[in-house]
């Protein structure tokens, strides 16, 4: 599949849309914890300084203050890195954002090992587990600029908590501007009949590359982009696996308690029995290095997906 290399990462795309939206609606505010030049929230801050609060290097205080303002009815965005937002500030997210179901939108960069170069302290590889576990939390993971911009609009389009996982580095552009996204939706960037590879975020591109290679072996892989992790698109997944009869989940996250566990439990509950495998960190931390080499080392690169897909096909 010929994909256009992206010029900007998803963290920049959502910040660009936030800046643009800031001129269209004056109700929302943005909280930052001193990484505004990294999350690109400074773009909004420069344009709307009275609606931008840089709370210093204090993610817990930032999240709790955002909750306090949201308790006043104010739509509130919090920008930061996944490890700090979903772990250091986790209790504030759980007890003071999700429990009162407040209108706080968390834009969380450095998801998975897309921040491989920064090392494990900066790689959010458990964020999906933490966030999807929280009652009432909506979780989105866009893979490109168009879906990141759409994620902003979807989040600001409803009252309640939401988490958006974003990437440090630019990968590819997949969706034309104007593509429709919805909470609980999915897209199928590649159709196939032999197995379903479901992924989200950067892993959509790894899955598409793997599908290209599988095609050369005569295997037609279908690639499902589950950009909405919670809620997720049960209808499309069911339709896909009923045709393909095999399911491979590719996620840049711990396998344990990631989307794979959710889908496996759903299959069992629904009485769907099929060859199933997971791509993701296998109860281990990654390391610092280049993104492609880190994926390769931890079995999340296209070659690993191809190899796992072959085994699933053999089990059918």
């Amino acid at each position, binding site marked *: 599949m010929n994909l256009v290399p992206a010029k900007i990462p998803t963290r920049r795309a959502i910040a660009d849309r936030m800046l643009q939206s800031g001129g269209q609606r004056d109700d929302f505010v943005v909280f930052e914890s001193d990484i505004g030049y990294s999350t690109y929230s400074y773009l909004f801050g420069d344009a709307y300084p009275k*609606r931008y609060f840089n709370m*210093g290097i*204090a993610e*817990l*205080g930032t999240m709790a*203050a*955002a909750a*306090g303002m949201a*308790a006043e009815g104010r739509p509130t965005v919090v920008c930061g890195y996944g490890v700090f937002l979903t772990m250091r500030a986790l209790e504030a997210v759980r007890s003071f954002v999700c429990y*009162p179901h407040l209108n706080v939108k968390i834009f969380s960069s450095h998801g998975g090992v897309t921040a491989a170069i920064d090392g494990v302290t900066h790689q959010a590889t458990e964020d999906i587990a933490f966030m999807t576990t929280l009652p009432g939390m909506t979780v989105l993971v866009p893979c490109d600029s168009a879906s990141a911009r759409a994620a902003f609009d979807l989040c600001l389009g409803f009252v309640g908590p939401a988490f958006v996982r974003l990437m440090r580095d630019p990968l590819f552009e997949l969706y034309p501007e104007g593509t429709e996204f919805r909470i609980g939706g999915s897209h199928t960037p590649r159709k196939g009949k032999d197995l379903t590879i479901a992924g989200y975020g950067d892993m959509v591109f790894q899955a598409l590359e793997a599908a290209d290679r599988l095609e050369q072996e005569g295997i037609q892989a279908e690639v499902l982009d589950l950009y909405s992790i919670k809620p997720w698109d049960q209808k499309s997944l069911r339709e896909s696996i009923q045709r393909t009869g095999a399911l491979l989940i590719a996620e840049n996250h711990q396998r344990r308690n990631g989307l794979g566990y959710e889908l496996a439990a759903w299959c069992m509950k629904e009485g769907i029995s099929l060859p199933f495998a997971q791509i993701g960190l296998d109860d281990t931390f990654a390391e610092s290095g280049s993104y492609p080499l880190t994926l390769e080392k931890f079995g999340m690169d296209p070659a690993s997906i191809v190899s796992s897909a072959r085994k699933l096909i053999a089990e059918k």
Partner: protein
Amino acid sequence: MTEAGRLVPETRIRQLEQHARDIRREIVTMVHTAQSGHCGGSLSASDIVAALYFDVMKIDPARPRMPDRDRFVLSKGHACPVLYAALALRGYFPVQELSTLRKNASRLQGHPVSTYLPGLDATSGSLGMGFAQAIGMALEAKMTGAQYRVYSLLGDGELNEGLVWEAASSAAKFGLDNLVAIIDRNNLQNDGKADDIMPMEPIDRKFEAFNWRVLTIDGHDMAAVVQTLESAAKASGKPTCIIARTIKGKGVSFMEDQREWHGKPPSDIEFTRACKEMDDAEPDCTETEGGRR
């Protein structure tokens, strides 16, 4: 030290003292009924909460979500019996409902949940988190020009939480002079003397160094409490911290300054004894127009 404020008439002070006594009686009663809850830190804060809810704060129990009402955030959320008692006695909900404390389906959750009960401005109970939310509430008023004030009550043990100091820094940065933090300085926390568990003194100089205005009072001297809360609510460019020196368990002799009464419910015998003491402490009914219930 207090700052010059409205001279509060003696009769008003007596009325507020009566409200504080009523609050204390309801605290002990509800914790006894529930056989669970925190008496000590509720009793130490009763005079402060009485002053806020019956005099200082601009509120309307008939309109608990009134946009320009003053906010109160009980950051030491475990002391919610004092807040529940004040809200009920002030008319937010029936006093009889206090007997449902900590029971299934009760609006009076073990720690305060804003979505459950009219009059609760914030969800709290995890120490430091209420105060940090109060920052956001005060910021909202600063941003929009709304005139409401935000009062947040913290325990002295709560000051151990690093989050308190994140919040204190940001309040000064944004010049939140619409924010008043009240420290219930009873010098006891769960495991012992606050000064032993984690010495936080000098608390006044700490807050001053964080660019707060600091006032220290006797938290059981109603005239001082009312006057200081009023003077704290004046625009000064800085947030205000009131260090209220209090006695944990105040009003029930055997609970006063005793560590174990942090989170212990009274037995039937202890409850009877506490009630007798509180009855004996009541002034002649004819002296107060605030009235006993």
